[in-house]
């Protein structure tokens, strides 16, 4: 039986898709059989982050409209052969998939995978309902920014109303700003949202670099964000992993930043 996890946030641009891609690859590296479902119909990007954009033949919308079965729409990852993507359509819109249809697909897939990860679109309209309905629990991704935390609170309220268990990932933390008192720290975010945190991901240029290449940063050994994602993968698997303190820049690193590399 699969564990079905939806990755959601409310606000756009906080790193839902990045988190989904990294979690998927990280679980696959551990030998789990994983499928990632993109539900951001019309604005799909999970294919790009995984480097699978040129291998899509059928989409979730084709599956919903019964033109193909889900197995025909799955794209198998080249390197991690136990990782699959069920992409969505880039031309249809969110109304193409009803929540009940999504629930049927998730139910049908449940025997085949260890993990089903659902990448939710931004917003709280139909796309959200469709993404969330089949999930056992939710990962809410937010950033230490006032608007992202407010929107996370809204989504948390919604998820609690539908009795979903919730875990939090705080993305794009800048330790130097936290230290200077110009960015919300984990204590404040915890005080406001009161949700178990399973990830504190530092802002890392390598995330952009890795997206450029279609190779999620969780594979990269020399990346602070990659380290954080590997820890998240472990925690999703039920391991007790203590949080490592995020390092603020040293004087010399800051000097290097000021004067370029």
């Amino acid at each position, binding site marked *: 039986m699969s564990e079905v996890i939806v990755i959601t946030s409310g606000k756009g641009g906080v790193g839902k898709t990045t988190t989904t891609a990294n979690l998927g690859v990280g679980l696959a590296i551990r030998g789990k059989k994983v499928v990632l479902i993109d539900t951001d119909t019309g604005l799909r990007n999970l294919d790009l982050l995984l480097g699978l954009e040129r291998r899509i033949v059928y989409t979730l919308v084709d599956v919903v409209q019964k033109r193909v079965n889900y197995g025909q729409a799955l794209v198998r990852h080249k390197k991690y052969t136990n990782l699959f993507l069920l992409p969505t359509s880039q031309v249809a819109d969110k109304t193409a998939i009803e929540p009940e249809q999504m629930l049927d697909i998730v139910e049908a897939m449940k025997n085949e995978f260890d993990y089903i990860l659902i990448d939710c679109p931004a917003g709280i309209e139909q796309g959200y309902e469709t993404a969330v309905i089949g999930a056992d629990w939710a990962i809410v991704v937010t950033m230490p920014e*006032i608007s992202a*935390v*407010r929107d996370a*609170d*809204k989504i948390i*309220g919604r998820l609690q109303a539908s009795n979903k268990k919730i875990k939090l990932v705080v993305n794009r933390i800048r330790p130097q700003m*936290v230290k*200077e*008192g*110009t*960015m*919300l*720290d984990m204590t*404040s975010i915890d*005080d*406001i949202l009161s949700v178990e945190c399973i990830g504190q991901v530092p802002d890392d240029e390598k995330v952009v670099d890795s997206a450029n290449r279609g190779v999620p940063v969780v594979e990269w050994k020399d990346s602070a964000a990659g380290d954080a994602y590997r820890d998240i993968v472990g925690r999703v698997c039920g391991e007790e992993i203590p949080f490592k303190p995020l390092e603020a820049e040293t004087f010399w690193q800051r000097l290097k930043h000021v004067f370029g590399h």
Partner: protein
Amino acid sequence: MFNFMRLFGGKSDSSSEQAHKRLKFVLIHDRANVSPEIMEHIKNDIIKVISNYMEIDQKGMDISLENDEDAVALVANIPVNRMRPVVGRKH
């Protein structure tokens, strides 16, 4: 960044402290589904009703939602200047 206000004993919240406070305020309203606009309407209606009996200091008046564990309370602080004369009012 070095904070001169702190050096001279002035009170200045860091921007992260401000974000924390502002979030706490706005989320009380978000969670209760009561917008600040509705609060303004409630305030005006309360003024209307109370003004039948008392002269109140509208500028010094403060009504707000406050969060106490799971319950939300409507808290009003309404300074009274004086009672209105009771002439013509039935007891």
